[in-house]
């Protein structure tokens, strides 16, 4: 049952940090598309700090070769942003397919990452793009790779009194090659059963700087270091893709639950990976 005792709606970060200070246990809220559901299911009451009015948190801009996406940027604004589409295409893609239009208009990338689900849409693409998360608190700013931020289902490195400010992502070069392929349970508004994101730099027949992130096949979104190693610098042909696909499957530990089976998820990791090289997106 939803029991909200207080809501603050600050206009800037300093105000927000003060509210944090004055109200221990207060919870940030952006789109509320995860949090409101969780609160409705729980018996506890909550105080909320609405971050969706803080301009700085909604910014999308490029400075010094880095794309900055504010934590409170909505998935629709990200999916539609020229800057994101050109500088970090997979992130635009994941924001463009999550949920449905109504959800995308409310839900934010910061909320998606803070919610820390192993099936979160933005995590694999942020990780593949080597994004860093920027955190702010009364003690100032700190940064870390997104993959270090996500610790376990529902668990992050966020400390109390800390807000996610946004994400810094290296702008991709012209020879970027990558894909984000995922399967859900229907064509839209569906939670990912398996997801594979790959970002790299392509020169001739070779891939460099390969970064692979997998969702829904482990307790958190994971990298695939062995597969990345096989791929980096090697000649990209069918044999390599096949070898890499097999390796990739061996790097994940999917479970069987009511959404899917571990055998199916394992095999799909390989299938989605192969499809990505054929520039194919799987249909649901």
């Amino acid at each position, binding site marked *: *049952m939803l029991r909200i005792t207080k809501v603050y709606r600050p206009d800037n970060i300093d105000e927000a940090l003060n509210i944090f200070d004055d109200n221990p246990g207060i919870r940030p809220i952006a789109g509320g598309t995860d949090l409101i559901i969780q609160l409705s299911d729980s018996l506890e009451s909550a105080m909320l700090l609405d971050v969706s009015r803080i301009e700085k948190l909604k910014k999308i801009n490029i400075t010094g070769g880095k794309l900055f996406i504010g934590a409170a940027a909505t998935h629709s604004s990200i999916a539609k942003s020229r800057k994101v589409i050109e500088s970090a295409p997979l992130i635009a893609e994941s924001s463009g397919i999550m949920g449905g239009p109504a959800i995308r208009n409310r839900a934010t990338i910061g909320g998606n990452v803070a919610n820390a689900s192993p099936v979160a849409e933005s995590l694999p693409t942020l990780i593949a793009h080597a994004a860093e998360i920027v955190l702010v608190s009364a003690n100032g700013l700190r940064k870390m790779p997104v993959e270090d931020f996500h610790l376990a289902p529902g668990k992050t490195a966020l400390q109390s009194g800390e807000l996610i400010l946004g994400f810094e992502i290296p702008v991709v070069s012209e020879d970027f090659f990558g894909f984000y392929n995922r*399967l859900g349970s*229907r064509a839209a508004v569906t939670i990912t059963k398996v997801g594979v994101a790959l970002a790299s730099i392509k020169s001739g027949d070779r891939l460099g700087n390969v970064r692979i992130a997998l969702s829904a096949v482990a307790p958190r979104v994971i990298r695939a270091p062995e597969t990345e190693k096989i791929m980096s610098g090697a000649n990209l042909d069918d044999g390599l893709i096949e070898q890499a696909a097999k390796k990739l499957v061996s790097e994940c530990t999917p479970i069987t639950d009511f959404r899917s089976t571990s055998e199916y998820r394992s095999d799909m990791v390989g299938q989605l990976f192969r499809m990505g090289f054929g520039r194919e997106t799987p249909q649901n």
Partner: protein
Amino acid sequence: MAVGKSVVRVDARSKATGKAVYVADMFMPGMLIGKVLRSEFPRGKIVRLDVKKARSIHGVHAVLTADDIPGKNVCHVVFEDMPLLATGEVRYVGEPIALIAAETEAAAQLAIEAVELDIEPLGILIDPEKYNSPDSPILFGEDNIFAHHKIRRGDIENAFAQSDTIIERVYRTTYQEHAYLETQGMLAVPTAEGGIDVYGTMQCPFYVHGAVSDVTGLAQSRVRIVQTTTGGAFGGKEDVPSLVAGWASVLALAAKRPVKLILGRTEDFVSMSKRHPSRVEVKLGATKDGKLTAAGIDILFDGGAYATLSPVVLWRGTVHSCGPYRIPAVRVDARAVATNKVPCGAYRGFGSPQTLFAIESAIDELAEKIGMDPVRIREINHLRRGDETVTGQKLGESVGLQECLERAITESDYYNLREKLHGRNGPVKRGVGISTIFYGVGLGAGGTHFARSGAYVGIQPDGSVQFAVGTTEMGQGMRTVLGQIVAEAFGIPFERVYCLPVDSSRVPDSGPTVASRATTMSGRAILVACSTLKGNLAGVIAPEWGVSPKAITFGENCAFRTDNPAKRISWNDLVERAFAQKVVLTIVGYDSSPPTSWDEDSGQGDAYVIYAWAVNVAQVAVDTRTGVVRVEKLWAAHDVGKAINPTLVEGQIEGGSVQGLGYALTEEYIIDKNGIPMNPRLSFYHIPTTVDAPEIHPIIVESAYSEGPFGAKGFGEQPLMGIAPAVANAVFDAAGIRLREQPFLPERVWPKLKKGAR
């Protein structure tokens, strides 16, 4: 003038703009919030139930258990086995145990938590196939069987012995959740003089009427039921609203205040009715040239913890189990059994989607074994005018199956389409599948005692007309279609007619709004009323014109002499004169259904008054890498007798088809082996979205039914019923794998693709 036109639905604007008032939108002075405490165990003995603490919580006005019910603790459906609140034993997760009425939701929640409840777990029966295993507990009667229906026709042993080809297959289906937009809810208001008014979302106001009287102990004369705007039902608001209304009513009487009780989504999901899971074993025999010789069918339905509608759902499933075919020898045995799970009930198709999935898949498997095209085997065997159904009913009129088949084949360009799709290479395989089905319209011999209807029609002094019926609008467009029938009967514009909300005090008991019967049954009652009123009006002018009232026709906004249409009077003038002469212009028309017959031992008789017919052709794409099945196109031909409103017919075809696709492909509600629901929410139970909907080509066939209003017969359920087998057959055509268990999730398809299994 109005019939056959696609007028805009009368409720379209108010629903699209959010102005429509649902029960959750209603507030009354002093109104309390009702809540239900439910079992978390699939079965157990209630060893302690103490509500003292809960009652003492501030803001709580009533906490009731079975002992506090003033009337009978029973919800009568077919039998009287289901209590309003559990006594002694709980039998499924979600079973109601206690009721709370409080000033706020928070207080009600605190009271729920304060009830002291101890349940001692008892042995459970979860798998319906173990209903007669010695280790299983007995939950109903002596053998766990709620109902056993049969069909016995011809010499089955001999017929199989004479068959050239025989197949035997087992098909399984699982739950389907209605997922109506609006969850169940009721508002009960005690009246100053000791009666009760109940407002809420429902399909069957007269079931609710009886139930509220039963549990409150109030005379039926003091109970009034008003249907509020109903946000979808699909069968899910047939019997269970009686429970919800019962809870709200006993709370309201105890608290002496209005009580609004609205179920949350998960609560609704866990505790309200579902489509029955099934196991259907089919044995079919045919000659080498494809003529069906024999059908032996064994049906098992998982009824859940109480009988509710299982006996009648099973009956429809039984009557439809052999498909729309001529089969000389038939033996069907159908059983619905008890388990410690949510009671299953009505859902669009009412037991027939399960058995039609089996027979329509089996027909294809038989054709494949004989080496015959799936369309050809249907052409050879399908029912035509003059044929007998497997229950021995001779088909007189309105048998439009052949036309449905021809048009679906032509418009889909079936043969060329198949060839074209098979010619493509690549990992995505495409194919086409077909299903031919039929639907017994109305309650049939399984529910003759309800087969009646009433309609109030009142001509107003200004010449506009209001009417009311006892069947309900739940989004299917009934108010619009019936308005068209009234307008057509009087020959006045549709805009001059208005349908009042359903109120049990306004019209006689009209039976339930189920079985695709509202258009035909209420339409017939309306025509009875209109005919009397036209006689009364004609009587006003006939003497002046020197003719009998029978020689006067109504149309073009006038009454005129049938033999001399120039001799006429405008509708308004005639109504004005009739009022001046104090002629009765407000009456209730009453009608009962044409007769049916049934012999329970042989399963022979005229099961339904008339049948609707349909053919679906589905084009699918099967991704052999992922096992994902996508339906790309669908042709759906339906014989509806007469399309009173063609756009609404197409709307039913489109909506029902998509609901059928959900049943075929994505909808899976899981109750685990311990009886615990795993995914009772819409984020984990996947109904199709608009993005999942294929290109749908509705094809309307009109083979008139002489007893129906303007030739119409019901068909609202039919669009869902044949989709799953058409898709399964198309998957076989595309990828050579046979899916015998619905839904066709990629997790089920993919292993078969890997094995290349048939």
